[in-house]
């Protein structure tokens, strides 16, 4: 499986595909460019990624450090809270998708529309379909998949990565200190 085969190889069908984020600097630039970012965290962030920590640990540390508002989908809210991040909203992924596709929507915290979303922790198929919905319904929104599996429907996606590689890329891009917050 190549690095930019969809995480589930059968999940093809897009005539444009996500720009692959090969280097931490690219992701760091996306973070920097985002004026109204939103981090979307699903329940599968509650898996042990690399041998050292849960995926959600890194995401929470970044959200805390950079004060990124967080939408917790599924039942991810309590786990985020436990890591010191109060989600701006607990909201179902579908609900959130529909709102992001509405240019009138004032954003997760009513502070204005988002220009970039970072997304991780949904099951592959759900993230794929949601990103498809956003690509078609929210054409001006930049979507960045942080999952360690290539998501062709995102604007930018990480390639297929091992957890270890994933951890090091994200840690560097988000400028997280080793060892946690």
């Amino acid at each position, binding site marked *: *499986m190549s690095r930019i*085969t969809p*995480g*589930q*190889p*059968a999940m093809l*069908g*897009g*005539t*444009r595909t996500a720009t692959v984020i090969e280097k931490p600097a690219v992701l760091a630039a996306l973070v920097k460019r985002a004026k109204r970012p939103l981090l979307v965290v*699903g*329940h599968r962030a509650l898996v042990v990624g690399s041998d050292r920590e849960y995926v959600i640990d890194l995401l929470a540390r970044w959200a805390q450090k950079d004060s990124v508002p967080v939408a*917790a*989908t*599924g*039942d991810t*809210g*309590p786990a985020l*809270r436990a890591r010191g991040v109060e989600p701006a*909203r*607990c*909201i*179902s*992924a*579908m*609900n959130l*998708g*529909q*709102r992001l*596709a*509405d240019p009138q*929507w004032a954003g997760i915290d009513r502070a204005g529309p988002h220009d970039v979303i970072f997304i991780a922790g*949904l*099951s*592959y*198929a*759900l993230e794929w*379909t*949601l990103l*498809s*919905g956003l*690509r*078609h*319904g929210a*054409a001006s929104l930049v979507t960045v998949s942080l999952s360690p599996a290539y998501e062709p429907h995102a604007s930018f996606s990480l390639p297929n990565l091992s957890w270890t590689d994933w951890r090091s890329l994200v840690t560097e891009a988000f400028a997280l200190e080793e060892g946690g917050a």
Partner: protein
Amino acid sequence: MKGIDIRIGEIASPLGRVRDLRVGIGRIGSGTWEEPAGPTPYPSMTALRDWDRRLLGRYRPFYMPLCDLCCLCTYGKCDLSGGKRGACGITLAAQQSRVVLLAACIGAATHTSHARELVEYLVERNGRTFPLDPGGLQVDLHMPHVELVCGERPETLADLETILDYCNAQLIDLLAATHTGQEGDPIDFESKVLHAGMIDHVSMEVADVAQISAFDFPKADQGALLVPLGLGTVDTERPVILVIGHNVPPAAAILDYLADHGLEGTVEVTGICCTAIDMTRRSPSAKIIGPISWQLRYIRSGIPDLVVVDEQCVRTDLLDEAARLGIPVIATSEKNCLGLADRTDELSDALIEDLVSGRVPGVLILDPEKVGEVAVRVAVRRRPERAVPPVADVIALAAACGACGACKGACPSEKDLVGGMQAARSGDTSVLARMLRSCVGCGRCEDACPQGIEVHRLMVASCDECERFAIRTGRGPVQDIEIREIGGPIVLGEIPGVVAFVGCANYLEGGSEVAEMVTEFAKRRFVVCTSGCSAMAVAMHRDEEGLTPYERFSGRFEAGGVVNVGSCVANSHISGAAIKIASIFAKRSLSGNYAEVADYVYNRVGAVGVAWGAMSQKAAAIAAGFWRLGIPVVVGPHGAKYRRMLLGRSDVDEDWMVRDRRSGEEVYVGPVPEHLFIAAETKEEAMAIIAKLAMRPNDTSRGRSIKLSHYIDLYDRCYGRMPDDLHRFVRTKADLPLMQKEELLKVLEARGWVERAIPDPTLLPEEALR
């Protein structure tokens, strides 16, 4: 209508299969029943378009295309992304809705075709005038869907043919609308999807009422028997027949043949999918193995001596799988011939010899009675036993794994199969064994593996669970008396809701989630219904005391009951119960009065459908039938692949203004129910959503407070805090659960909440109200 005089003399035909007499005119049946015809008997596909557009104006499609392309005609492929239109001018949004319509047509056609096959067979078997009796003395309103949609009260099997002719014609019109260069408006496509769904429930009702009546299934029986379910219930010392599918006549004929020849108890008749449930409705001696996901696993166990397949949800590679173990196959359906020679007209002895000797891998027999005889006589001449690889082999076979991840990438359940294989090669097969619990048994991992490792087979071999469970067999419709008893509490909101767990087994995390949700809502004294594969999944899990939900909860349609209505076609009884509430409890006229009754159900009956593993086109059609009645449906995460959700916007107040039937004024009712169709990510989220979707504008304060307390509780369990949208559901202080009143009031005040009136709501236009 007057002066119709139809007499039919004796019919004799020189042909083996003659097309049946069909006499249809407006009213069918004896005509003694009198109810004024409503505005839309036998509605065409635009007759209810206005109602649909009201619903769809509130619940707007959120499209998540599975593909940027359309490949339906030779202009294609067309790239519809980025606002581009196809060569026919279609947009991506319309294309998604078109494909949903196509799926709904396939689903509804499948039920309608199945219903016709049943009705034609039963007419031949039991006679044209065989009376319909789905509920014995307990059910007066036999066919709420047929009455609501067609304005008819069929009385005999033959009466059902006219209903099915109507269903056929509607579905053909709908299918025609999917042709290149027909409909192009997404909302018109969605309206047609709802029409297909409505037709689907009519057809399902026809199918189940016909088979209940003619096969003498439990008739609205609260005490339907507990029957065995699970691999562990099979006595492998006996000859074992496996039936798979949805059309019960061949299986029933097997049971009848055994009974007629004094062979009961000597042959195990086991089943997968809906035929399995329906067999147990015919005879409690039949055994259910499990839902659709058990096909590969059970065949590969080597236990069945013979496989009999009918139609729907049958693995299409079953003949190959069976052939690998030398298991003979009998195909029984015109819809699923498996490429086998049609030997319906040959002598049974010849067929039996060919099957037993292995001269042919299988035969096609389009006569249930002959299937009954051949199946039993083949099975009793048992085939040599085979076995699954022992666990030691699993470890050896896993050693070939190169950890490439192809299996994982192919797994719809997104299992970390690489991890499982790595554990196995180092001697620990328990990881694979655990994964089997949420494996849908699709076999894609095996085809994907470049090393040719049979991953699913190794998982099965790693797992030596062989349990015995119990399921309450399908009881059929809800009794009129049950409706009379709980119609009021449901409409007033005092029973917090009716939750139906239906549909297929395409779970991401396994069927145990369904069992957990069923248990949770039954404990909370919702009325819980189950059907089809979901009914089976529920049975396959025990609580701490070792009881399955069917053993733990009653089978009554009551608060805290867990009601298995039956196979997939029995889903019509769940929606039918909602219609019955409008009729029996609220005395609405049903006859051809769809929009008014749907408006009633939508505003007053707190019902929610849950298709946690919805996979099929049938499931799409079933869901659409619920939607048109205003009943929301929650699906599991794979349900997002149905290409679009129908979502309300709780944050847009204008969307939730309705007309108060009393005052005629526009009033805010809150986002109840918030969505018509939504995929949930986890079962915790699903439960919070279900509790919320059970709220209805018409809830009394007492009812609303009960519903709110469940919502608040399940919300807290999922999100660890007070609902963000609490204020939208509280109309007056009396709506607040007593125990938390003070605390909640503080929250509400902080959000600037003000009291508002409780209306008598309707979505119908003024002129539609009488």
